[in-house]
């Protein structure tokens, strides 16, 4: 039987030294996957949902729910490979094996791991790199140390952001000042912002948006989508389910966007290093206003694969957690395309600013009754104005137009969503 890996009290901030387990989301025998949230950790600053970095099955919960403060690194649970869930005697000396491909984000750096095992002799040695005058060797963080640029650390101090709560915008890259500012804007883990930080967040959003507008050559498309059939279908659906299970039009709109994004991968992904990198799925960023001001756009992962009902559930969950200040930091950076809707505020259309490094943002105005010409006649129909803000470096207007057409097409067949 393989030695279990140990889930330890994570370091969730540069100045965090200890934390208490406020809640367990898992119990022995539960299967967990890397990235799953398994516990709520109470720190001096906030209650933070902690994730695991291993796949496996929970063996024992070593730390009960308690207010007792446990030092960083204290074993909290054991995790076994595969189905081998038989609890084994554990000790604090057990360390997780090195997992080369798993690079934990610095938000919860694990305790120091032993050095990686040497490569097998048969492994081909990497080609000797041609010395380049412009090679940049990225700094690598030691285990337990947060990789952040000096300026990021300074900005974090200035903005009152816990550097440990910031997730790098570029995977494997140290935290940049932009990441800090994005985190300050989203403030995912820091409970109620002190008054003097509200302006800091405002400034951070301003910086982000300024940078986006400066760096990204936006182009904009707009189309009106007639929703008579969709709204009727939705009303019919909602009649048959409980109030809690009802689906809002927004979910339908978002689902249509997600499916269209899957079909047009050129709009779904990140602009990185001068090229477009397609997303590894459609992770739909949803712009959500925060209480007390500010805006975040956390991602619903694989939104295109959710049923409408699931999407609605996740949307509600996300909104609640944004408002409650319990957002996972990684949700802040996963999005591959973002959707924003100001329809409930009464505007007809919204032209959004793209969230770098994404390359597209879809905006929806309010669904309203408008005069609509169809089939040679004039009628009153529910209509929504959809806009696309897209990065001209990644795509051209023709593709953007096809995208909006696809959204329209999907909304005309809501039963397929």
């Amino acid at each position: 039987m393989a030695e279990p890996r140990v889930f330890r009290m994570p370091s969730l901030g540069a100045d965090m030294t200890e934390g208490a387990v406020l809640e367990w989301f898992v119990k022995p025998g539960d299967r967990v996957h890397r990235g799953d949230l398994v516990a709520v950790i109470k720190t001096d600053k906030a209650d933070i949902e902690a994730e695991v970095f291993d796949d496996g099955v929970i063996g024992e919960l070593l730390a009960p729910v308690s207010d007792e403060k446990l030092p960083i690194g204290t074993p909290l649970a054991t995790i076994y490979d595969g189905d081998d869930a038989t609890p084994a005697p554990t000790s604090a000396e057990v360390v997780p094996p090195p997992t080369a491909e798993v690079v934990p984000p610095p938000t919860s750096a694990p305790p120091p791991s032993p050095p990686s095992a040497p490569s097998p002799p048969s492994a081909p040695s990497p080609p000797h790199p041609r010395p380049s005058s412009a090679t940049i060797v990225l700094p690598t963080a030691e285990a337990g140390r947060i990789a952040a640029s000096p300026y990021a650390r300074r900005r974090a101090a200035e903005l009152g952001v816990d550097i440990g709560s910031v997730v790098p915008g570029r995977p494997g890259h140290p935290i940049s000042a932009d990441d800090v500012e994005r985190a300050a804007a989203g403030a995912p883990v820091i409970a109620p912002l002190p008054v003097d930080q509200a302006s800091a967040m405002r400034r951070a959003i301003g910086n982000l948006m300024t940078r986006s507008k400066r760096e990204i050559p936006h182009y904009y498309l707009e189309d009106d989508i007639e929703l008579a059939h969709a709204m009727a279908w939705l009303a019919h659906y909602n009649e048959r389910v409980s109030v809690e299970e009802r689906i809002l039009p927004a979910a339908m709109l978002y689902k249509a966007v997600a499916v269209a994004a899957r079909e047009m991968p050129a709009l779904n992904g990140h602009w990185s290093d001068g090229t477009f990198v397609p997303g590894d799925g459609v992770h739909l960023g949803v712009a959500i206003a925060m209480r007390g001001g500010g805006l975040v756009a956390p991602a619903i992962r694989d939104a295109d694969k959710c049923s409408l009902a699931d999407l609605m559930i996740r949307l509600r969950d996300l909104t609640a957690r944004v408002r409650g200040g319990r957002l996972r930091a990684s949700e802040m950076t996963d999005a591959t395309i973002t959707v924003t809707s100001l329809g409930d505020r009464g505007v007809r259309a919204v032209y959004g600013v793209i969230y770098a490094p994404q390359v597209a943002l879809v905006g929806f105005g309010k669904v309203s009754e408008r005069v609509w010409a169809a089939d040679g006649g004039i009628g009153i129909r529910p209509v929504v104005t959809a806009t696309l803000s897209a990065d001209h470096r990644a795509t051209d207007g023709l593709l953007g137009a096809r995208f909006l057409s696809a959204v329209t097409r999907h909304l005309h067949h809501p039963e397929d969503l």
Partner: protein
Amino acid sequence: MSSVTYREACRQALRDALQRDPRVFLMGEDVGRYGGCFAVSMGLLDEFGPERIRDTPLSESAFVGAGIGAALGGMRPIVEIMTVNFSLLALDQILNNAATLLHMSGGQCNVPLVIRMATGGGRQVGAQHSHSLEGWYAHIPGLRILTPATVEDARGMLWPALEDPDPVLIFEHASLYGASAELSDDAGPVDLTRAALRRPGSDVTLVAYGGTVRVALEAAEALASQGIDAEVIDLRTLRPLDDETIVHSVRRTHRAVIVDEAWRSGSISAEIAARIMELAFFDLDEPVARVCSAEVPMPYARQLEDAALPSAPDVVAAAQRVCHG
């Protein structure tokens, strides 16, 4: 205003200096009858005579040393060395005497000498005429190292260099001699103490000098079309370095790319990177990047030489990396 080549600007500066001060004279290989190997001193022999426009034997050490001695003896010599590679034949005089006499003599023997030489690659003249060793010279206390990158500086740096009581080396990038720009008819001496902001920007600082300034400017234009707003600093003087201008810029952009035609190891770019680290560490959002020449003696073949030298696409790529990872 009139359009003037870098070469003409150098010549105007020489003529101006020769007219201003009877102590000034020019000596070097082929500066007289030949008109200078880059035709900079063409016509000056006729104008000023062989006493003041002196052809020398191929004796770099002797005529550079003679420049030092003449400076000690009350003259204001301008010594021309054909290329920086040849200056190594006079390195003993430049380092052990010109840069050292003042200190070694307890402040008695200042050496008001100006040495001009061509530097840099890009002309397919191979490994003994193409290197950029000005960074080496910038290592030496007691020397002032100037790298005029513009027609204005080519015109304006010589006179203040002659006014300097200590030795000044002026490195003229050979690929610039034919470049022209508008120059005011009353153009004259320029300030030597500050680096120049050649293009303002907010996203990344490109630090360049001499021949790499136009590479950096070209890169900045390309970057602008990609939404990266690059600032370009022309160092102008490699010693003493204007730390303040560099640091002031990096404090705003948080990113720096140094473009240096010299080899990377132990280069002036390394010095600048170190100073940015020393003076602006907590303003850095990315490691300082460098675009330098490949670490090979300069090859003859066009495509190899092109590959060896820092190019605008190299700078663009480096800037993209520090801006977008």
